[in-house]
C-alpha cells in the first residue's frame, strides 16, 4: 500500500518530464533521422525515399565541419585561458566587499541580447573601428572583420561568463588552509597552484568547458555576423539547407551526423576528465 502510493507519486513527478522529453526530444529526433534517408521534394522540402545519398554527400560540407571542429575547441580553450585568471582573481584575491559587485558587472552585459553584443563587435572591428585607429598609428590596411580571428574573438567574448562562473564556484569552495599547508610544506607559489589550486578547481574548468563547447559546436550567429558569411559553421550550413535551399533530407543528415559527433566527443571528454582527475560524475553534471 505504502509502496504503491510511493510508486504512484514517483510516476506523477516524473511523468511531465518524461512526456516532455518524449514529445519534444525523442519524437522530433526520430523524424529527423527518418528524413535524413529521404529525398528533396521537387520544389524543396521532403519527399519519402530510402537512400544513403545524403550521408554520402556530407563531404561537400567538409569545410564547414572542419571550421566547427577546429574553432569550437579552440574557442573553448581560449575561453578557459581567459576565464581562469579572472575567476581566480574574483574568488581568491578580491575582498568579499567588492566581490558581489564585480560578479554583477560580469553578468550585466548578459542582460542585453547576444545579437546586440555581437553586433557591437561588428562596428568595433569594422573599417571605422579599430582599423581606423591603427591607421592613425601608421598601420595601414588592417582587416579584422569577417575573418576567423573575428569569429574566435566573438565566441570567447560571447561565452566567457559561462566559463567564469563554474570556475569561480570551484575556486571559492577551495579550502584556504590547504594553501597554507602547501606553503608550510615548502611548495612555492607555482607548486601550490599546480598541486593544490588547479586540481581542486578542475571540476569547474571541466564543467565550464563542456557548457561552452556544446554551445560553440552549434553556433551560427557569431560566424554569420563576424565572419561575413565567409567563415561557415555546421550551424550555418543547417540554416541554409532548411531556410534557403530547402533540402530538408540533407539538412537532417547533417544534423544527425553532428549529434553523433557531439556524443562521441563528449563521451571521450568525460572519460578523459574522469580518468585523469578521479572526478565524480556529479561534479561534471
Amino acid at each position, binding site marked *: 500500500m505504502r509502496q504503491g502510493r510511493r510508486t504512484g507519486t514517483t510516476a506523477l513527478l516524473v511523468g511531465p518530464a518524461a512526456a516532455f522529453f518524449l514529445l519534444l526530444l525523442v519524437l522530433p529526433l526520430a523524424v529527423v533521422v527518418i528524413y535524413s534517408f529521404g529525398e528533396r521534394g521537387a520544389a524543396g522540402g521532403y519527399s519519402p525515399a530510402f537512400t544513403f545519398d545524403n550521408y554520402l554527400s556530407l563531404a561537400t560540407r567538409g569545410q564547414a565541419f572542419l571550421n566547427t571542429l577546429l574553432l569550437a575547441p579552440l574557442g573553448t580553450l581560449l575561453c578557459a585561458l581567459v576565464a581562469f585568471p579572472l575567476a581566480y582573481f574574483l574568488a581568491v584575491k578580491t575582498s568579499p566587499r567588492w566581490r558581489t559587485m564585480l560578479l554583477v558587472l560580469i553578468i550585466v552585459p548578459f542582460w542585453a541580447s547576444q545579437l546586440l553584443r555581437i553586433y557591437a563587435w561588428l562596428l568595433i572591428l569594422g573599417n571605422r573601428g579599430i582599423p581606423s585607429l591603427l591607421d592613425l598609428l601608421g598601420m595601414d590596411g588592417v582587416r579584422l572583420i569577417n575573418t576567423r580571428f573575428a569569429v574566435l574573438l566573438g565566441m570567447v567574448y560571447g561565452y566567457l561568463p559561462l566559463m567564469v562562473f563554474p570556475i569561480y564556484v570551484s575556486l571559492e569552495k577551495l579550502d584556504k588552509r590547504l594553501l597554507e599547508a602547501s606553503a608550510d610544506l615548502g611548495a612555492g607559489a607555482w607548486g601550490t597552484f599546480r598541486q593544490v589550486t588547479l586540481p581542486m578547481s578542475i571540476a569547474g574548468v571541466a564543467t565550464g568547458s563542456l557548457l561552452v563547447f556544446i554551445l560553440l559546436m552549434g553556433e551560427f550567429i557569431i560566424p554569420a555576423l563576424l565572419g561575413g558569411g565567409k567563415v561557415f559553421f555546421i550551424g550555418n550550413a543547417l*540554416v541554409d539547407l532548411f531556410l*534557403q535551399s530547402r533540402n530538408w533530407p540533407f539538412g537532417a543528415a547533417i544534423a544527425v551526423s553532428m549529434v553523433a559527433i557531439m556524443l562521441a566527443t563528449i563521451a571521450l571528454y568525460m572519460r578523459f576528465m574522469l580518468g585523469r582527475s578521479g572526478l565524480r560524475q556529479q561534479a561534471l553534471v
Partner: protein
Amino acid sequence: MSDDTRQISRKQFVEELLRYRRGSVSRRHFLGITGLGLATAILGQAVPGLRPRPAFAQDLGDTLNFTTWPNYFDQANLDQFTKDTGVNINVAVFGSNEEMLAKLQAGGTGWDVLVPTNYTISTYKSLDLIEALELAQIPNFIESDHDTRFIGEAKIDGAIYAVPKNWGTTGYVVNTAKVEGEMTTWKQFWDRTRDDLSGLVMVHDYQLTTIGNALKYFGYSFNSIDPGELAEAEKLLIEAKPHLFAINSDYQPAMRAGDAVMSVAWTGDASQLKRDIPEMHYVLGKEGGEIWTDFYAIPKGAQNRPAAYAFINFMLDPAVNAKEVKAHGYPSTDKRTSALLPQEVLSDPILYPAQELLSALEFGAAATLTDPNRAELMARFKSA
C-alpha cells in the same frame, strides 16, 4: 539565472539573425528592434488603450503582418495607414525569395501581405501558397496602366495573383572615390574582385543573383541551369570567394562604412547610397543581368484579409506610391504614379537606365529559383 535570459534572447535573436543574414536589417532598424524600440512596441500593443483608434468605421482588426525586403518602404506611408485605419503594421524583412518560399512552405507564417518577385508567382500558385486576388477590393490597381512586360507573370489562367509594387534591376554599385577606372561590365566586376579590389567586394547571399551574375562573366544567360555552364560559374565563384569582403544581401552598411567599395546591388539601394554619398555609382553590366518586378500578394490562410486588401489598395494609391518611389528609389510600373514624380526622379539613370542597357537584361525564370543544382551550388560556394 543567466541560463534563462540566454534562452529567451536566443529565441529572439534567431529570428532577428535570420533577417540580418539574408539581408535585411539596417542598423537603425536593428537597434530599434533589439533595443528600446521593441520594448515600446510590445508595451504599446499589450495595452489596448495605447493603440491608435480607427478613423473610420470599417473594422480591419488591429494588426497586419507585412513581409517585405530591406529599405523598401516609406515609414511615413505605413504610419499614415495606421493612423487612417487603426491597423498596426508588423514589418518583417527578408533577404531572398528563397527564404520567403522556405518559410511559406514550412507553414504557419501568420503573414497577411508579402512582396514576391515576378519569377516566384507561378511556384507559389502551383504550391497553393497564395490566393487569387479579388480585384474589386483593390480599385487603385488598373491593369491597363501597367506595362504587360512587368506584370504578365502575375496573371495565371485569367486570374491575378499579385499586383505590382515596383520594378528594378540588379547591377552593382561602385564607390568611385575608392575605385579607379570606368566600370561597365560583369567581366570587370569579377576580374577586379580577384585583383586590385581583393577583400573589398560583396555579393548577395542569394543564389539567383550571385550565380546569375557569375554566369554573365562568361556571357551565359542569367537564368542558365545548364550543368556545364553552372560548373564554370561555380569555378569562378570559388576562385573569387577568398577575395570577397562578405556574402550578404545587406550591403548598405558595409558600403557606407567603407568596409566594401563594390557590391552587387539592386536599384533602390544604389539610389539610397548615391543620395547620401554622391561618389556611389550604379553599373548595369553590358553583358546583361536581371530586370524584375516585385508584387504585393496575399498568402493562403492570411489572418487579416480585410486589412491586407485595404493596405495593398492604400499603397497603390498613386500619391502614396509616388512617395514610396521617392523614398526607396525603385521605379514604379504604374503610369499614374510616374506622372506624379518630379523630373529629377524620372531622369535619374539609376531608376531608368538607358535603353541599350535595359534591352540586354533578362527577367528571372521560375526554374532559376527552384533548380536544386543552383541551390546546392550556392551552398557549396558558401561552405567552401
